[in-house]
C-alpha cells in the first residue's frame, strides 16, 4: 500500500514536516522590525570529515573550498552552497534541498586513492531557525555566552558551535551581520523556538543593545 503523500509546506504529513510548524503563527506574531524569528526552508546538509589535503578535491566536486580558518564559513559564488567549519577536520556542507545524495556521491567518487574521508547525509538532523533584525544579537545574548558585540568576533562570515539557553546550537552569522541562523537538533527545535519567543517579548523596551 504505497500511499502518495501530500506535499504540505512543513505541516503534518508532509514530505518535510517542520518540528516548529505548530509555533509558526506565534513566531510570525512575535516578529517585527526589531527582531524576527522564522524557520528556514528545507536544505540539504552533509557532514564532511576530511584532511586538509583533500580540500582541493572537495572544492572541485562541490564548488566551495571548505574553510581552514576555525569558526568561519565559505560559499559558492551564487551563495547556494555553503561550507561551515565545525572542527579541524570536520565541515558542514549546506546545499539546496534534495542535493544531498548527489553531493555525497560526488565527493565519494572524487576521493583521491590515497585519501579517505567521512561523508554523511545529515539533512534531516537539524532544524534551522533564523533570527534577524537589529536586536537579534541582543535576544541571543540572553541565552548565549559568546561575545555577540557587533564589533566582536562574530562578524558576518563566521559560525560557532556553542550553547544557547540549555541546548547546543550552531550559529551562522550570514552575509548580513544581523541575520543569524541557529542550527539545532530537531528534537530541541520546539524548545529553542519557544525559548526565543519568550526572550523576544518586550525587546522593544530594552534600553540599548550593546
Amino acid at each position, binding site marked *: 500500500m504505497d500511499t502518495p503523500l501530500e506535499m504540505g509546506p512543513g505541516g503534518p504529513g508532509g514530505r518535510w514536516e517542520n518540528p516548529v510548524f505548530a509555533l509558526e503563527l506565534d513566531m510570525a506574531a512575535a516578529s517585527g522590525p526589531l527582531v524576527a524569528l522564522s524557520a528556514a526552508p528545507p536544505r540539504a546538509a552533509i557532514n564532511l570529515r576530511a584532511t586538509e589535503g583533500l580540500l582541493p578535491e572537495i572544492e572541485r566536486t562541490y564548488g566551495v573550498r571548505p574553510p581552514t580558518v*576555525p*569558526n568561519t564559513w565559505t560559499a559558492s559564488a551564487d551563495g547556494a552552497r555553503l561550507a561551515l567549519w*565545525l*572542527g*579541524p577536520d*570536520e565541515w558542514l556542507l549546506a546545499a539546496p534541498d534534495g542535493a544531498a545524495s548527489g553531493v555525497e556521491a560526488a565527493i565519494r567518487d572524487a576521493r583521491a586513492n590515497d585519501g579517505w574521508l567521512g561523508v554523511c547525509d545529515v539533512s534531516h538532523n537539524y532544524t534551522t531557525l533564523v533570527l534577524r533584525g537589529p536586536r537579534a544579537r541582543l535576544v541571543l545574548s540572553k541565552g548565549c*555566552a*559568546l561575545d555577540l558585540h557587533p564589533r566582536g*568576533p562574530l562578524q558576518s562570515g563566521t559560525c*560557532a*558551535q*556553542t*550553547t544557547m539557553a540549555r541546548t*547546543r546550537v550552531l550559529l551562522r552569522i550570514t552575509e548580513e551581520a544581523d541575520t543569524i541562523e541557529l542550527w539545532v537538533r530537531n528534537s530541541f527545535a520546539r524548545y529553542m523556538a519557544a525559548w526565543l519567543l519568550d526572550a523576544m517579548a518586550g525587546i522593544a523596551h530594552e534600553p540599548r543593545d550593546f
Partner: protein
Amino acid sequence: MLLIECPWCGPREEPEFHYGGQAHVARPADPAALSDAEWAEYVFMRDNTKGPFAERWCHSAGCRRWFNVLRDTVSHRVLAVYRMGEAPPEGPR
C-alpha cells in the same frame, strides 16, 4: 566558571567542555601483561595535584576536539593549552 582556550575555537565557557581527567596517562599497550595491581593503577589511580596540573578537556559543545590544559588547581588559572600528542610546556607539572 572557567574560561578555557580551545586550541581551535578560542576562549569558551566551561559548560561547553567535558572534563577528561589527568593528561598523559597512556593506555597500556599490552594490558594482559600487567599484574592486577599495575592494571588497577592505570584504571583507578590519578594524581591529586596542588598547583599546575596537566589535564584533558574536550570541547564537546564546539569542535569536539580533545586537547590538553595545564591548569593551576589553586588559582584555577589556565596556564597553557596544547594539542593531543604535544608535550606539556616547560616548567613544573
